[in-house]
């Protein structure tokens, strides 16, 4: 049984799971942006014969049940797995049932949601504009930050919002991989499941309402901003 409602009608435990969820989604989004941007760029520009295979691999989480991803990750990151076992031998802890474990799971699970909008935005950039930047002495990094990113800001915003929202809505991978450890892996979706199993419908109600409101407000803000971002810039 959770304690009596405290701050804003939610208990300390509930706040803890909300904070954990936000931390997980925030870190997932940051790391994914750094990973997905170069990956999406490579997929957009490459003529490599590996690009189809990589595209398929990136899109797998879209079609697989989260339990499948969670299952394989559990095997890999657990004490007997390739990753977890190696860590154990190095005197560290394996990653199953840990925050780092569910972070890795979230990153893999949300990868297509970060890559796809960036890829579309990058593909829409006229390559001659990048050539022009090169002839204006802009290095590859300079071109990426001064031309590619500003021209794909709609795609970046989409990637951030969808990744963040998708991670918040994640359940299956975490349930398989993280179990239900307060302050470590008990995110809101897990807590709701837990409360429902224990017939604590009041608590399940409160957390579900928080998720529902948050998701709606996030998407509302996203569509409002996106309309402005996508319209042509006015001269300053």
């Amino acid at each position, binding site marked *: 049984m959770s304690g009596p409602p405290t701050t804003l009608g939610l208990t300390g435990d509930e706040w803890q799971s909300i904070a954990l969820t936000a931390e997980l989604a925030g870190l997932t989004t940051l790391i994914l942006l750094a990973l997905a941007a170069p990956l999406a760029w490579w997929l957009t520009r490459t003529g490599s014969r590996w690009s189809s295979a990589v595209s398929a691999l990136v899109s797998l989480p879209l079609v697989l049940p989260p339990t499948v991803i969670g299952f394989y990750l559990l095997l890999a990151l657990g004490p007997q797995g390739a990753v977890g076992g190696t860590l154990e031998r190095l005197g560290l802890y394996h990653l199953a049932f840990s925050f780092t474990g569910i972070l890795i799971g979230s990153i893999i699970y949300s990868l297509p949601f970060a890559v796809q909008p960036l890829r579309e935005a990058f593909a829409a950039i*006229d390559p*001659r*504009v990048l*050539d*022009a*930047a*090169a*002839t*204006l*002495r*802009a*290095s590859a990094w*300079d071109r990426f930050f*001064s*031309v590619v990113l*500003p*021209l794909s800001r709609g795609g970046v915003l989409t990637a951030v919002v969808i990744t963040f929202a998708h991670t918040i809505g994640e359940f299956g991978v975490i349930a398989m991989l993280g179990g239900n450890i307060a302050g470590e892996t008990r995110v809101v979706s897990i807590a709701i499941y837990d409360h429902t199993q224990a017939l604590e419908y009041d608590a399940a109600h409160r957390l579900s309402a928080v998720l529902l409101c948050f998701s709606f407000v996030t998407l509302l803000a996203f569509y409002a901003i996106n309309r402005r971002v996508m319209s*042509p*810039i*006015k*001269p*300053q």
Partner: protein
Amino acid sequence: MIEGHLRLQRGCFLLDSGPFAFAAEGVTALFGRSGCGKSTLLRAIAGLDAATTGQLRFRGEVWQDGRRALPAARRDIGFVFQDAALFPHLSVRRNLLYAIKRAPGADKKDLDRLAERVGITSHLDQDVTTLSGGQRQRVAIARALLMRPRVLLMDEPLAALDWRAKAELLPLIDGLTLESGIAVLYITHAPQEVERLAARVMFMEAGRVQQIESLRDALARPDSPLFAEEGPVSVLHGHLGPGPGPGLATFDCGESRFTLLQPDGAMRSATRLRVLARDVALATTQPVGLSMLNQLPVRITAMHPHDDGRITVMCALPGGQMLLASITRYSQQALQLAPDQPVWALVKSVALMD
């Protein structure tokens, strides 16, 4: 000198330029039909395609040696694309500042001076997506020149523009290249642009450089590829002056003086006069009672018959410049025209306008 031999496969098109070398000064026109590889060669010279192989040296500096290439960002080039390729997320001013921030030794004062020179001062704070085609190309030219390049590469900068914008931009490009002294490599498939701008012509066909020669030599060949559209053309060098009557101007070249319609604004500084051979008639004696204002004594130097019954008659003006006349074989036989013969060349003034 710009010399090299470049290879580049783009899709199913193969550029294999063959060896080429030309002086890195004045305007060199890269001329050929659409799809002959002009743009591919220009991109290879700029270093914009990583797959380029071969050799390229610019004034002795190695820009390409086998697969090793100096990146485009480190060659002293300016590049003007056919569609301007401005940054759509930046204003006109910020497009120009993008160049200034990255140009070695650039001065912010250059921005205002060049904007004024190319005529975009009143558009500096405008969104580039609201500019007309001609205005976009002006911005692109200013942006490229702000880099203070040692060679300016222009890829059909006028091809996408309407005739009025073309007529305004051609003298601007002509003037800017003269003032700046920057070597220019200028792609076009329009003979008029070659004749108006170029000091020399590089002819390309099927991915290969066929020939590099001075404009004068290119125009002296009766089968010159420059004559494909409007037939043979003479380009006379001289300067404009006031005309004998209202709406008229004169063009002096050596000892000869042409009378023509007063050109409008931008063309007033023209130093070249294009005369189509088909607009030139020949007479064995000076005619009287004729509306044609231009009646010039010339001497026939050569005659080139064509399969279709035309003859291109090469005539030397008193100053030595060449004027070409296109007449029928029938006229040539009726007048018994022959080399070394003095004749009168007749040209209508209204024909002397581009």
